[in-house]
Structures are given as C-alpha cells and as structure tokens.
C-alpha cells in the first residue's frame, strides 16, 4: 500500500518537469489563430503607384510571402538582406507597409533595397488587425488557394526559413 504515498512525489516530479519546460518557451511566440484560414479580404493602395490597388483576390493563385514591415521598425532592417536574397531566388514576396508614411517607406526601400513585388499601404493598421498582427516584422506564407499556411513573428532569418518554410515548399513540389 506504500504506492499511495508515492503519488504526491510522482506528481511533484511531473509538475516540475512541466514547469521546467515552460521556462525555455518564448512568451512572445504566440500560437496564431490564422493558420489554415483564408487570407482576409482587403483592397489597399499600392506604394509608389498612384491609383493602383492591391487586393487579396489579385494575390490568389500562387504561393507567396506576405511581409508586414514599416520604416520605423528597426528589426525590419535586419531581415531585409535575407528577403533580398529570397527575392533573387525567385520567391514572390509582397509587402504590407504597416502604419507608416508612404514617403518614409519609399525612402527606406530606396536605402535598404526592395525585395517586394508590390507593397500595399496599410496606413491605419486595419489589414494588420484582420491578420492578427501584433508587431513588425511578421511574415505569412500563403498558398495558391489563398490559405495562410505559416506565420513567423519577428525577423525572418535563414534558420527559420530552412526549418519552417522550406519543408512546406518541398511538400508541395
């Protein structure tokens, strides 16, 4: 009957392991409610092209990355070199310019390089709210059916790309 007295000890060990694991989790990495959902509908002006609009319907039909960025976002500079490299490799990247002034955004792209096919202006952050964005940069992978497949919060680097994004491309090819 001694086993009954072991239960609290085992329970304590289990709880300790569970909480110990929690220590190494990053609280900023939240599970996204968007994975598997269709890209929310939007129709926003295109940066640097007067009168043109970028719509979610226009983007349907091919796999692409949607990067949320802004010229005021200092972390965005850090992923820019990598995004340029991806664009050179032929990955379609569209930008969502989040709560920025078009002038500053264009100046920033001029300075740091432009990996985007097109950039939509989300001046009041409405599209970002629909996407569940809570900071810049954030990167979404959208498939040909317009469904959000992946979401990365923070700087997109080679490691994240290889671990999370490349397997998706391999699966579909």
């Amino acid at each position, binding site marked *: 009957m*001694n086993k009954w007295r072991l*239960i609290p000890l085992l329970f304590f060990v289990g709880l300790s392991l569970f909480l110990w694991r929690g220590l190494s989790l990053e609280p900023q990495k939240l599970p996204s*409610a968007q994975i598997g959902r269709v890209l929310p509908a939007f129709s926003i002006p295109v940066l640097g092209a007067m009168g043109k609009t970028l719509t979610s319907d226009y983007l349907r039909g091919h796999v692409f990355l949607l990067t949320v960025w802004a010229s005021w976002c200092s972390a965005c500079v850090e992923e820019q070199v990598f995004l340029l490299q991806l664009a050179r490799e032929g990955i379609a990247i569209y930008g969502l310019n989040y709560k920025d002034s078009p002038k500053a955004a264009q100046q920033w792209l001029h300075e740091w390089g432009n990996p985007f096919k097109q950039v939509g202006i989300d001046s*009041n952050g409405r599209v970002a709210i*629909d996407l*569940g964005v*809570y900071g810049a940069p954030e990167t979404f992978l959208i498939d040909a059916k317009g469904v959000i497949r992946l979401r990365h919060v923070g700087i997109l680097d080679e490691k994240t790309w290889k671990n999370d994004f490349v397997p998706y491309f391999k699966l579909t090819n």
Partner: protein
Amino acid sequence: MILYRILNLQISVGFFLFLLCSPITASSLYPFSQPKQEAQFKYLLKELRCLVCQNQDLADSNADLARDLRDEVYGLVKDGQSDHEIIDYLTKRYGDFILFKPPVKSVTALLWFGPALFLILGLLVFWRSIRQGHHDPNGGGS
C-alpha cells in the same frame, strides 16, 4: 532652499493629481451616449490582454497596438454588438491569448478542472495513508 522645497512639493502634488486624473481623461476619449455601452466598453477592456505588453490589459496599455484595438472595441461597442460578438471578433484574429480568462475547451480542460482533480487525488492519498496507519502501524503490506 525653502523655495526649492516648496517647488519640489508642488511638483510632487502636481504629479499625484495627474495620476489621479488620468483615468478620467482616458474615458472621455471614448464618449458614449449610453451608460450601458460605456460599462460594456470598460468591462471588455479589462478582460482583454494587450499582445505587446502581455501582462497589461487593453485599458492600461500605452502600446500602439493596444490603442488601435481600443478604437476597434470602441467602434464595435458603439455599433451595438454584444460582448460575445466582440470577443469572438478578436479571438478569431488574435487567438485565445487575447483573453485573460481562457475559455473552457478540451485544450484548457486540465487548467480549469485540474485543481479540483488534484484536490480529490490529494484527499484520496491522505485518506488511504491515514487508514493504512490506523490498521497497520508498521507500514507493512495488508
């Protein structure tokens, strides 16, 4: 020296008054015609978490996103949407994390019912141990 002290005191009093006043000015930024809607708005902001500064609610946070979401909630409340509809709108975009109180789901079952479960387990162990001690003081098997 005395002048300096008085000045210093005035600054502290001023700062204290500023602290007292700030909640009042915050609510006048979001005017409501119906007190019921105002109460709903205040209640919702306390229930919703700021996603940038994660331990603050939307009412307290000064983050840019929190301000946008406050405006969003304000608009929805003015439209006459219910608490349920507004919370649904936000969790659809940001997930359950935006709620301070997690909803009862299969994933959160352990969180909600765990304490009761562990209490029962503890009582059971306690009861078995006591009975054991009473019957057999040497602790041998029965």
